[in-house]
C-alpha cells in the first residue's frame, strides 16, 4: 500500500515555509505522494448549509487562508524528484476545462509523469458564482462528467480536436503538449455518495472516499463493483484510496477509536491500515486536523513514517 501526506495548503498554518518544508520531508521520510486541496475564493457568507459530511457552522475564517492547489503542486514538482503530486480534490466545474487540461498536462510533463488528478463536483454555490461559473452549479455533476471526457479527448487526440457536449463545446483546436503518460494522468473520483461511486466506475481510475470507516468502505466497494459491471469494466480497473487523519504523539486519543484516525498506539494504527488494505485500499492519504501547527504536522507524519508504516510493511 502506498502512503502520502497532505501538505496542509489551508488554515492558519499554511505558509511559504510550511509547504516546501513538508514537501521536502515527504521525500526524506519515504512517502509516496504529497497532496493539496482546493478552494479558490472563500465567500464571506453562504445561503445554504454545508453538505452532509461537513458538520458545523460555515465559518469563512476556517478556510480563508487557502493556497491555490495547482500552484502549490507545480512549485513542489520543481523542488522534488520522486513523490507523486495529487489534489484531493479539484472542484472540477468551477474551472474552465480546457485551461485546466492544459495546466495539468504541462505539470504532468514537467514532473515526469508524477501527477494524480483527484476530482469532485463541489458544494459551495457562492464560490462558483464568484469564479464566473454560477451557471454550472445546478448541473455540476453533468459538468464534471463532461469535463473528464473533454480532458481525455484533448489529452488523447493527435492533430485537430473538437468537443461538443451539453455544457462545454469548442471548434477544432490543436492541443500540445499531451501529458507525460499516454492517455493522461490517473483520475481519482472523490466522494462517498452514490453519484461519486457511479462516476468512479464510469470514468475513474480510482475511487477516493474521504474518512470512511472500514465497514463503509466495504459497502462502497461492493456498490463500485456493481457499477463497474454496468459499464462493462472489471473490478481491477478502479483501485481504491482513502484519506485518514494522523495526530502527533500524545494527541487525538479521544478520537482514536475511529478507523480513520491514527493516534497514540502505533500497533493499533498499523492494524487499521492493514484492515483498509485488506478492504482493497492501495493508497492512503494522511492529513492532519485543520489548524495543526507545522511542527505538530511534522511530528504526526514522522510518527506514521517511522512507527506505523514499518509495522504495516512487516506484516
Amino acid at each position, binding site marked *: 500500500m502506498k502512503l502520502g501526506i497532505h501538505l496542509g495548503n489551508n488554515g492558519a498554518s*499554511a*505558509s*511559504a515555509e510550511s*509547504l*516546501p518544508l513538508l514537501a521536502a520531508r515527504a521525500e526524506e521520510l519515504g512517502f509516496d505522494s504529497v497532496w493539496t486541496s482546493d478552494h*479558490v*475564493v*472563500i*465567500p*464571506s*457568507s453562504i445561503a445554504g448549509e454545508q453538505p452532509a459530511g461537513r458538520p458545523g457552522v460555515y465559518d*469563512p475564517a476556517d478556510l*480563508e*487562508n*487557502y*493556497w*491555490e492547489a*495547482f*500552484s*502549490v503542486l*507545480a*512549485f*513542489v*514538482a*520543481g*523542488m*522534488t524528484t520522486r513523490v507523486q503530486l495529487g489534489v484531493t480534490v479539484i472542484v472540477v466545474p468551477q*474551472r*474552465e476545462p*480546457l*485551461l485546466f487540461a*492544459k*495546466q*495539468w*498536462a*504541462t*505539470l504532468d*510533463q*514537467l*514532473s*515526469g509523469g508524477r501527477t494524480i488528478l483527484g476530482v469532485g463536483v463541489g458544494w459551495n454555490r*457562492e*464560490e462558483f*458564482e*464568484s*469564479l*464566473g*461559473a454560477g451557471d454550472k452549479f445546478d448541473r455540476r455533476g453533468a459538468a464534471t462528467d463532461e469535463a473528464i471526457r473533454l480532458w481525455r479527448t484533448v489529452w488523447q487526440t493527435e492533430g*485537430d480536436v473538437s468537443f461538443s457536449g451539453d455544457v*462545454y463545446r*469548442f*471548434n*477544432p*483546436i*490543436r*492541443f*500540445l*503538449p499531451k501529458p*507525460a503518460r499516454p492517455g493522461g494522468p490517473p483520475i481519482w473520483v472523490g466522494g462517498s455518495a452514490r453519484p461519486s461511486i457511479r462516476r468512479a466506475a464510469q470514468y475513474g481510475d480510482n475511487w477516493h472516499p474521504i474518512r470512511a470507516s472500514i465497514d463503509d468502505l466495504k459497502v462502497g466497494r461492493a456498490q463500485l463493483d456493481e457499477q463497474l459491471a454496468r459499464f462493462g469494466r472489471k473490478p481491477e480497473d478502479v483501485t481504491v484510496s482513502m484519506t485518514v487523519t494522523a495526530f502527533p504523539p500524545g494527541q487525538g486519543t479521544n478520537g482514536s477509536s475511529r478507523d480513520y484516525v491514527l493516534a497514540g498506539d502505533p500497533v493499533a494504527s498499523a492494524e487499521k491500515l492493514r484492515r483498509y488494505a485488506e478492504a482493497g485500499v492501495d493508497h492512503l492519504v494522511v492529513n492532519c486536523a485543520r489548524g495543526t501547527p507545522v511542527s505538530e504536522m511534522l511530528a504526526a507524519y514522522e510518527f506514521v513514517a517511522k512507527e506505523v508504516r514499518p509495522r504495516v510493511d512487516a506484516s
Partner: protein
Amino acid sequence: MKIGIHLGNNGASATAESIATLAARAEELGFDSVWVSDHIAIPTRIESQYPYGPPGSFTPEHTQNFWEAFAVLAFVAGMTKRVELGTSVIVLPQRPPLLIAKQWATLDQLSGGRAILGVGAGWMREEFEALGFSHTFDPRGKATDEAINLFRAAWTTDGPIEAHGEVYDVNPVLMWPKPARPGGLPIWIGGHGKRSIRRAAELGDGWQPLRIGVEELSELIRYLREQLNRYRRSQDAVTISLGVTALPPGNGSGGATQEWELAGDPDESAEKLKRYAAAGAEHFVVNCPRGTSMAGMIEAYESVAREVRPRLDGS
C-alpha cells in the same frame, strides 16, 4: 539594467528537458529573470490578425506545442532561488480573474516575491471562444482594466472584497494568502498600441513592448510620460521593458538584422541595447526565434550573458 531570457515554452523545441535546462542556465549565467508566453488552445482556423508579426506568421503548426505559462513558472519557481519569474504576457480576459489573483498570490509567496505578472488583452477571438470566454472578447479592454483592479483589491484588502463592474460581478469573498510583497506583485502591461500604453500609465507597474525600433520606442515613451502626468503618477512608476531577439550563432550574422535582433558581433549588439537603454528601456527580455533548438537557444543566451552583457555594464 536588467536582462532576462524567454524559456521558449512554445514551438517544436519546448520539452520538459528544455524548460528545466534553460531555467537552470538562467540562474548560472546571471540573468535577472525568466519569461514565458501564453496561449492555451490553438485554433485550427485563425482569422484574427496577429499583431506582433507579419500576417500568417502565427500558425497552428508553429505554435500548437504551447506549454501552459503559469504551470511552467510555478515549476521553475520550485527549482530556482534567485531569478524573477514573469509572463510576456498572459491573456487576461480568457481566464477567470479571481483564479489568476489566487494563483499569482500563491506563486509570489512560494517564490519569495519573485513574480512579475505581464498581462495583455489578447487578440485571438477563436481562442477566447474555445476557452468559453467569447463574452469577454469584445469588451476585452474593459475586462482587462476591471481584472487588474480586482487583483489589486484581492491582494491588498484584509477583509471581504467585492466588485460590480460591466464585465465582472463578484459578491463579497475573502482572498488569502496575499502576495509576498505588500501591495501586491508588479503588473506589467504588454503591447505597444496607445490603449496599452494608457493602461500601463493608469494601472501598471511596468510596460512591455515587443520588437520595435529605437525611434518608435522613444516616441511611445514620450506618450507614456504624458499619460503618467495625466494620471498624476510619478515618471518612475512604470518600469519600461523591451522584448528583443537573440539569433543563435550562424544565423543572421550577415548584418541584415533588425534593431531588436542581437546577432554576430557582440560590440554591435551591445551598442543596440545601449541605444534602447538611453531611450529609457530598463529590463530586456531576450527570446530566440520560434523553432530554435534548445542547443541553439543556450548558445544564443550564453553569448548574451558572456559577450554582450559585459560590454554594457562596463560602459
